[in-house]
């Protein structure tokens, strides 16, 4: 069953075509990765899908709701964890989580239940009363994802979730993301090839706003005639894969 259907989505910034006639389908419960070099159009695609940027033409349907005509309905079923950690620095971890519950209008009982759930899921118990500004990079990322998950989204956008993290923090976050796989639909953008390969159900590679390929990591490697996913990515982006 499809979670996202993108139909000929296009976005131009002056003379630059950031996303060019993009069409693809993402299934419910999939962990779908968007890959591409800088300027490929990944972030613009996510911004259009999360109703932050208006498309110039085309449309996308998130669980059947149009991003062009039903933005409020789309916003009620999605959550975004931006590239920057995007937390309230002088609020504690608990207060940050309670803030999002307040914005979604959860009653007190549900708020307490959801906060406890996210603390357990993201392993935030040791820092629950710490101000967000004082957290390490890894914990800030966990909090960022917890803030996105607490609103019970059907579709979650993770924009470079492990950017700048050390190896251990990244491995911890991978475990958390893996645990979410199948429960909600996740769209992930990353520059780390091994991350996309390890986590994704399917991967789309973009260049200059265009979709080059969309398949499983194995099929992409087969297509590029290599055993190494990073090499496959390079070949496809350079246009060397036949």
């Amino acid at each position, binding site marked *: 069953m499809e979670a996202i259907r993108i139909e000929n989505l296009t976005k131009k910034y002056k003379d630059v075509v950031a996303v060019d006639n993009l069409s693809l389908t993402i299934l419910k419960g999939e962990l779908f990765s968007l890959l591409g070099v800088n300027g490929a159009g990944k972030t613009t695609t996510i911004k259009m899908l999360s109703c932050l940027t208006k498309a110039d033409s085309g449309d996308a349907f998130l669980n059947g709701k149009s991003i062009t005509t039903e933005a409020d309905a789309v916003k009620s079923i999605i959550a975004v964890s931006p590239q920057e*950690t*995007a937390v309230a*620095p002088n609020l504690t971890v608990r*207060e940050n989580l309670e803030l999002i519950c*307040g*914005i979604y*209008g959860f009653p007190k009982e549900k708020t307490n239940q959801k906060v406890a759930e996210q603390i357990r899921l993201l392993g935030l118990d040791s820092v629950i009363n710490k101000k967000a500004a004082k957290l390490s990079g890894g914990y800030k990322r966990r909090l960022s994802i917890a803030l996105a998950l607490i609103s019970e989204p059907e579709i979650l956008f993770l924009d470079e979730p492990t950017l700048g993290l050390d190896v251990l923090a990244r491995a911890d976050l991978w475990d958390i993301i893996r645990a979410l796989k199948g429960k909600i639909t996740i769209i992930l953008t990353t520059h780390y090839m091994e991350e996309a390969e390890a986590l994704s159900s399917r991967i789309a590679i973009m260049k200059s706003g265009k979709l080059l390929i969309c398949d499983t990591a194995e099929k992409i490697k087969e297509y590029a005639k290599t055993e190494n996913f990073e090499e496959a990515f390079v070949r496809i982006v350079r246009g060397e894969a036949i």
Partner: protein
Amino acid sequence: MKMLAFMGRNTKELLRDPINLAFGLGFPLALIFLLSAIQANIPVSLFEIQHLSPGIAVFGLSFLTLFSATIISKDRTSAFLQRLYTTPMKPLDFILGYTLPIIPIAVLQSIVCYVAAIILGLKMNVNILLSVIFIIPSALLYIALGLLCGSLFNDKQVGGICGALLTNLSAWLSGIWFDIELVGGTFKTIADLLPFIHTVEMQRAILNGNFTKALPHLWWVLGYGITFLVVAVFFFIRQMKKQ
């Protein structure tokens, strides 16, 4: 509900920043005590407590512009606002959520200022209470300026524009530190056309019980306040759509 949750967050962010407390409350208090000490040694009519305290109460408001601009610009640059734009929050929730928490801080700031003035010899009467109430239109003007600067500039620019330029403009063109009549000419014309002197003169007139004199200044303050607010809302929504 959404707006209340956001308001609560902004109040905590503002009150938990030690720099805000130091500048918002500490600096005006230090000024009032320092200038009163100077006045005690070298009497200057401008620094008599009846004349000085309304000016200091208004000068403290210029820091509110810095506070509101800083929190908005930091929320923009840290992508916290981008996160909230993908929630069901509406533009009005953001604008009221940023504006309303600063009003009680402005009232508290002016109460602290007048309490200090009473300690330094200001006669206690009902006009002090009215001065505190009528600080609200001036506070709205300064908060709207903060909303405008926060929507237009990043946090580094806000530090320069609101922290340095605006506090200086507000100090030089308000008649708090020297009598603008004595400078006269173009300087006085410019000062009269800008809102800063009117915010101070309104406070002085109310504290002295001269409400007829306060009224024309109130129209200036309200006129500028509403204009700044409308422009600020326009630019806030514009940057929201730009996201």
